Structure formats: structure tokens, C-alpha cells
């Protein structure tokens, strides 16, 4: 903005921004490679690796057998041996079959080895619902991954953030879980809302973990959220503005590390906190954010609302899924309750 009006060179979808960062890192460092189910010839069922096999070949973009335990374990080992693997869980819901590799090996081997090894790998995972894929293919599980010590957890909401966070994730010497929401990728059969497709510089850049982004400034309430619900919160803020309520929207961008300071600063300004999450309500992101603010600045909290998935399996039925996954109206209603 300092010089003339900067010209938008091109817009990218979130999937293309992710892939651009991965390709750039693979060109720069031959230790970076990608493995997962249907990531080579298919390009990732949510376009997370589109075009990588064509450029880098099968040795560096590997399709693996359907055994998450085997290939996530292989990724942990490769990382400990000095490589920089990116391993993809096709659906985050499948983490259960490889829970020991993720929770006990990837997350803890640096600690268990007394720092003799580090595990510089990225675990990518498709998350989220809203497209009627039922209870075993629609979860976000943000809280499950952010809960265990030893892993960094990032969740992009736009193409710009997706590229910068991916560069940072691959360069990080610790394990990073990179959770991308299917609805934001910009896929033809799964249309994204307006918002995730953004201008993306062609040069590489990083976005540091633990830096939440104020996506919209406001005075009357603070909405804290992540992933798909950043866009639903922005839609809610737009409609609230018509009623004279000014809502601030904070995109966490990373859950671990958590940028408590940005949240607390905002709540000290507005006094009202609304936390919106697509994960289950209990023992999750909403409770954690509220507790973190209470720890730091209890007196600033006039009013608190949690908007999350109720503690039920996500229904397959379209109207039932739409009922349980929070939408812009649910968020706006919660903000209005804080103003009473």
C-alpha cells in the first residue's frame, strides 16, 4: 500500500495455494516428499497434491497402501532420519487407526529421545463437514489434535494464509498438523463460499504460528473462530452491522501455539466473547478459548457464548446436518444474546 495501488496479479484457490508452497519447498529441498492415499495419480481427493506427481515423480509423491499406521510410522522414521516428509490423512476421521503413531510417536519422540532426534514432518488432513458425508467423514477433530503436547496445529481459512502457513509448516523442525477444510479448497464439486479464494503473491512467504488474524475489526463483540467458520462469522458480522452491532472476527490460524494475547486484547475492548467451532462442544476449542481468556482477564468478560457442534455424531441427512453445524444465523443470534 506504500507505493501505488498494488495490482492483484492473480487469485488462487486454497488448494492451489497449498500446492504452490509444497512444490516450492520440494524444489528447494530434496528431503521434502509427500505420501498418502491417492496423492500421486489422483492429485489428492481434495486437490491437495494436484500436479505434484507430474513435476516430481513417484519417488517424491507416493501413493501408499491403505494402512495409516504403516505410512505415518514411515513418515515419523524418515523425519527422524533427517528427511522432511509430508504425510496426508485422506480424512482426519481416519486418525484412529494410527493413533499410536500420531499421539505417541510423532508427538513425543523428540521428548522421549532426550532431544536426540527431532521429527520435522507435516501431517496434512482433510477436515470438516457440510457436504453430507456422514459421521465418519465429516469431523474436524480440532480439539483432539490440539490436546496432546508435542504437535503444532494449524488451520488455514484463506488461500493467502494456506500458502504462508504451509511454508512455515514444512520448514519447522517439530511435527506440524496442517488441517485443511474440504469446503474451503475451491473444488468444482464442493463449491467454496466467497472468501477463501484470495490474491496470493507468487514469491514465497511465511506466516508465523501463534499469530491470530483479525479478519474484521469491531467494537461490540469478539467472535473467535477458525477454518470454514471464519467465513460464516464474517457473514454474520456483515448482517449484524446492518443492525448496528459491530463484531470483531478473529481467525485463530493456529491452535498450537495459541495466540491468547490477540484474543484477550479484543475481549478487553468489547467485553463480549463468542467462540465458534465446527468441532464438538465438550472438551474442545470453545471451552479452551473461554478458559484461556478467563485465566488472563476474567474481569473483562461481561458475556460469553459458545457456538459449536452439539455432542452428537454428524448426521448424513442434509437437513439434519445443516441443523447441527453452526451457520451464520446461529453465530449472529449468539452475538445478539451477548448484547442484551
Amino acid at each position, binding site marked *: 500500500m506504500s507505493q501505488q495501488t498494488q*495490482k492483484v496479479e*492473480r*487469485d488462487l*484457490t486454497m488448494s*492451489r495455494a497449498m500446492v504452490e508452497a509444497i512444490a516450492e519447498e520440494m524444489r528447494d529441498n530434496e528431503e521434502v516428499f509427500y505420501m498418502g492415499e491417492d496423492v500421486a495419480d489422483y492429485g489428492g481427493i481434495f486437490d491437495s497434491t494436484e500436479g505434484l506427481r507430474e513435476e516430481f515423480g513417484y519417488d517424491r509423491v507416493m501413493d501408499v497402501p491403505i494402512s495409516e499406521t504403516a505410512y505415518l510410522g514411515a513418515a515419523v522414521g524418515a523425519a527422524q532420519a533427517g528427511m522432511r516428509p509430508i504425510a496426508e490423512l485422506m480424512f482426519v476421521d481416519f486418525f484412529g487407526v494410527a493413533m499410536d503413531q500420531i499421539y505417541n510417536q510423532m508427538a513425543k519422540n523428540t521428548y522421549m529421545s532426550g532431544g536426540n532426534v527431532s521429527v520435522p514432518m507435516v501431517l496434512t488432513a482433510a477436515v470438516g463437514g457440510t457436504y453430507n458425508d456422514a459421521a465418519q467423514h465429516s469431523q474436524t477433530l480440532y480439539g483432539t489434535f490440539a490436546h496432546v503436547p508435542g504437535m503444532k496445529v494449524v488451520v488455514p481459512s484463506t488461500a493467502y494464509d494456506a500458502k504462508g502457513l504451509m511454508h512455515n509448516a514444512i520448514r519447522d523442525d517439530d511435527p506440524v498438523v496442517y488441517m485443511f477444510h474440504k469446503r474451503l479448497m*475451491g473444488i468444482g464439486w464442493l463449491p467454496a463460499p466467497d472468501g477463501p479464494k484470495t490474491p496470493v503473491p507468487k514469491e514465497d512467504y511465511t506466516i508465523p504460528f501463534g499469530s491470530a488474524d483479525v479478519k474484521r475489526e469491531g467494537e461490540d463483540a469478539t467472535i473467535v473462530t477458525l477454518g470454514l467458520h471464519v467465513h460464516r462469522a464474517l457473514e454474520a458480522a456483515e448482517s449484524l452491522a446492518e443492525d448496528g452491532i459491530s463484531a470483531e472476527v478473529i481467525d485463530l490460524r493456529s491452535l498450537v501455539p495459541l495466540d491468547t494475547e490477540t484474543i484477550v486484547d479484543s475481549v478487553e475492548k468489547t467485553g463480549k466473547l463468542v467462540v465458534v467451532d465446527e468441532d464438538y462442544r465438550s472438551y474442545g476449542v470453545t471451552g479452551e478459548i473461554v478458559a484461556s481468556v478467563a485465566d488472563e482477564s476474567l474481569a473483562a468478560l461481561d458475556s460469553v457464548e459458545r457456538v459449536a457442534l452439539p455432542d452428537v455424531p454428524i448426521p448424513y441427512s442434509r437437513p439434519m446436518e445443516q441443523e447441527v453445524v453452526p451457520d451464520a444465523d446461529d453465530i449472529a443470534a449468539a452475538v445478539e444474546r451477548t448484547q442484551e
Partner: protein
Amino acid sequence: MSGDTDRVEVTLDKWPDDADSDEGVVVNWFAREGADVEAEESLCEVQIEKVSVDVLAPTDGTLAEIVCGEDDEFERGDTLAWVEP
């Protein structure tokens, strides 16, 4: 000044071989009107029978006009946009 006759049309050159349909839909535009584009650069993504295909810039130039916007349907051979070299 360059008139309309100098404009080069943007269209999908290679229709997928295995597609039965002669209709597609524009999914994403990556360049905006007025943007400088380079030959072979991906300008937009279209979908034909669930298969995504990129439409490339025919020449260096400026994306003068987008004819088919996002979510618009088009037929084989239709002009999707115009580039001024």
C-alpha cells in the same frame, strides 16, 4: 489503438476425450479483468462431467474481458474471455 479485431479469444482448446457432454461450467477464475497475463498461464478452471480442466492464456497480454463468469455454463468452442496482446 488496438480494436476488437486484435483481441485473442480464450477458449478450452482440448475438450476431454472421454467426455460425452458438450457443456461445461466455469468453476474458478484466477485472473481478474485488467490483469497482465502470460501465455500458457492458467486463467480459469472449468469442469466438464466432474473433470476439472485449466484454461490457459493464448498469448501474453491483458485480460480485457471475462465473458463467462464463475458458475456460468458454456458449450464446446465458446469464448470464455478476451486477451489483448
